[in-house]
């Protein structure tokens, strides 16, 4: 059998959050090139699963957590720059705090204008709206230039049209993606595979073509 290389793998794993078991007997494999959407009501364990998956390939993953975790005093530019702190020598990082590095500035300005925050490049993060903050968080993930994108509700603070546009951008810029979403239509449009979580288990795992928006709405009890 000639199975493609596996990026993420869980074989009957149980996962706990703050000491309480939230996911049982998880079997999941993600291969390069897949765009996986995690669906499930809040509290279903999407964040716990994502956190655990990220640790399997921490250096490959561009990470976009639910709380952007920006540094309020630093500018948009610096917050995006922080995505690559680990690959640049520390003395260059320090110099960049005092005076922005011209190369990084060009690259980050391009990312920021793609995300629609080009005008705010040197505005402190604490002066941004919630939507702008999640764009900065996306920008940091983009600037990491890593093959896998992992996001926990990365576009939930944006309006429908912008969410659609920016999620498309993230999918286009990364080879593989695992994204927790609560918008079924977005998942259908941008992902190739749907994983549905319910009652602490994976209840559904199939290609987008084999399911329908109607069927997926069952994961969100009214």
């Amino acid at each position, binding site marked *: 059998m000639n199975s493609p290389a596996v990026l993420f793998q869980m074989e009957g794993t149980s996962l706990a959050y703050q000491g309480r078991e939230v996911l049982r007997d998880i079997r999941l494999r993600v291969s390069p090139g897949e765009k996986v959407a995690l669906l499930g009501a809040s509290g279903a364990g999407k964040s716990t699963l994502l956190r655990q998956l990220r640790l399997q390939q921490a250096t490959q993953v561009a*990470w976009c*957590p639910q709380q952007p975790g920006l540094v*309020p005093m630093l500018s948009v530019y610096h917050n995006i720059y922080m995505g690559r702190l680990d690959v640049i020598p520390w003395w260059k*990082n320090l110099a960049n705090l005092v005076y922005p590095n011209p190369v990084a500035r060009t690259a980050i300005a391009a990312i920021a204008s793609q995300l629609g925050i080009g005008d705010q490049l040197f*505005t402190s993060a604490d002066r941004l709206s919630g939507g702008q903050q999640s764009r900065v968080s996306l920008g940091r993930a983009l600037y990491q230039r890593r093959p896998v994108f992992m996001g926990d509700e990365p576009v939930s603070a944006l309006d429908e049209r912008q969410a659609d546009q920016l999620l498309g951008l993230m999918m286009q810029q990364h080879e593989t993606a695992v994204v927790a979403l609560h918008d079924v239509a977005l998942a259908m449009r941008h992902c190739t595979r749907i994983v549905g979580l319910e009652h602490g288990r994976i209840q559904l795992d199939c290609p987008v073509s084999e399911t329908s928006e109607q069927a997926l709405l069952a994961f969100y009890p009214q």
Partner: protein
Amino acid sequence: MNLPPLYPFLRSGFRVQRSAQGMLRTCLLFVVLALLCLPWADISVTTRDPWLELSRLGWGLLTPDFGRPGELILALANTLAFALQGVALGVVGGFLLALGYRFALIRRFSAFIRAIHELFWALLFIQLMGLSPLAGVLAIAIPYAGTFAKIYGELFEEVDPSAWQALPSGTGYLSGFFYTLLPQALRPMMIYTSYRLECGIRSSAVLGFIGLPTIGFFLETALKQGLYSEAAALFYALVLVIVTMRWWLQRRLVLFYLIAALVWLPPKVSLDTALVVRFFTEDIVPSPLRSIQGWSDVLPALERFWPWLNQLWQQQMWAGLTHTMILALLALVCTSVITLLWFPLISPLFGGRWRQAGGHVFLVWMRSAPEYLLAFVGLLLWGPSMLPAIVALALHNGAIIAHLVGRYSEGIRLREDAATGINRHFYEVLPRIFRPFMAFTLYRFEIIMRETAMLGILGIPTLGFYIDSAFSEFRFDRALLLLLLTAMLNMLVDGMARSLRQRLHLSSQPESL
């Protein structure tokens, strides 16, 4: 302040809206001012072999000599007795002043009495009452009363007013105060008061250096004779008393301690009434004005007064003032550097539990050493210059602010993929702690200025040097004017730091500083 923007190249094209801009400029201003001060700051090492002395000191610290337990216990008992009585009297005085803290006059008065360092008060009272217990107790009580008045007063102002407003109309001020304000402010007042007792023990220890029988007296003797092992034993005893305070300072034992302190060291005094009268009516009057007998003497006396004042200004006041400001500014900048280097030691964002515990022990040690003692040791090591004073102030105050900043950093939650090491310090943590760091440091600036003036007693030419000389030459008129100048400088710095804190939107709440 109209300083240029930090990124000049951005002036065209980008709107720069940086929340930290004001703070960064203020910081930069302080650093630039400190650098400009450097050419006037005497920071030379004048001893022949500082390393030899340092190694002897280090050896002493490693081999403490507890050979004279009787002397040690006597010194500790005296230190605690002065501290307990002084702080208790300060609490009473401060509480009474705080009752009237809404009146500007009382606020000014409180600011004035705390602007004069306890060592200066001690010099004054020793003149009046000799080396009597009451002199030491009052020297602690008076400036502490000024501080307590401020902290208690601000705590009363911050109490939720709804309980007060719900009282029946016609309730008197005192009834309302004891039923609504005091119960709500009591807890933070107790916490602050117990912290001040720690400061009181340090102050009491330092009073020994000018002759009162506390631990500082024995420390000075041992250090001057080069008996570093004996000095180390005394120092360890002092640190032990301060570090174990949280166990021995029990609420129900306070009254017992206080009675014991009064029995051990009754605040007796033998006042020479004639001397006291002479002090107030003659000694402290500027010498050219003493001869005034009637109206006809006034004009000639004033004609002599101005040259006298002018001479005093040129020879002592101006020099003392500039040296005090230069030293305080340099000490402030060094304190900030120490703070930023040391707070990671106790922060959970860096290192594990053991490293944090070690950091806590280290910082407690560093802040338990009174700055006067550190400066005294520094003088032995490096000779008389500003260097020992700067190092002493930076180590002591840096340890205190690092402790506060480290505790603040416990509330910071980082992302799972946050950077580590030096990148974490500068990108994730420093920007987040910068606002409280500035608030704490500016809060501390007034205290650094007070201490700088006081360290002059050691021979560094700040205001304290001239005050001490005036006292020892029995020129009390000069001493009084210099003391007033010192107080004015402190009140000015206090006001400046407060307005800076407000302008930068830093918290102005009373901190345990």
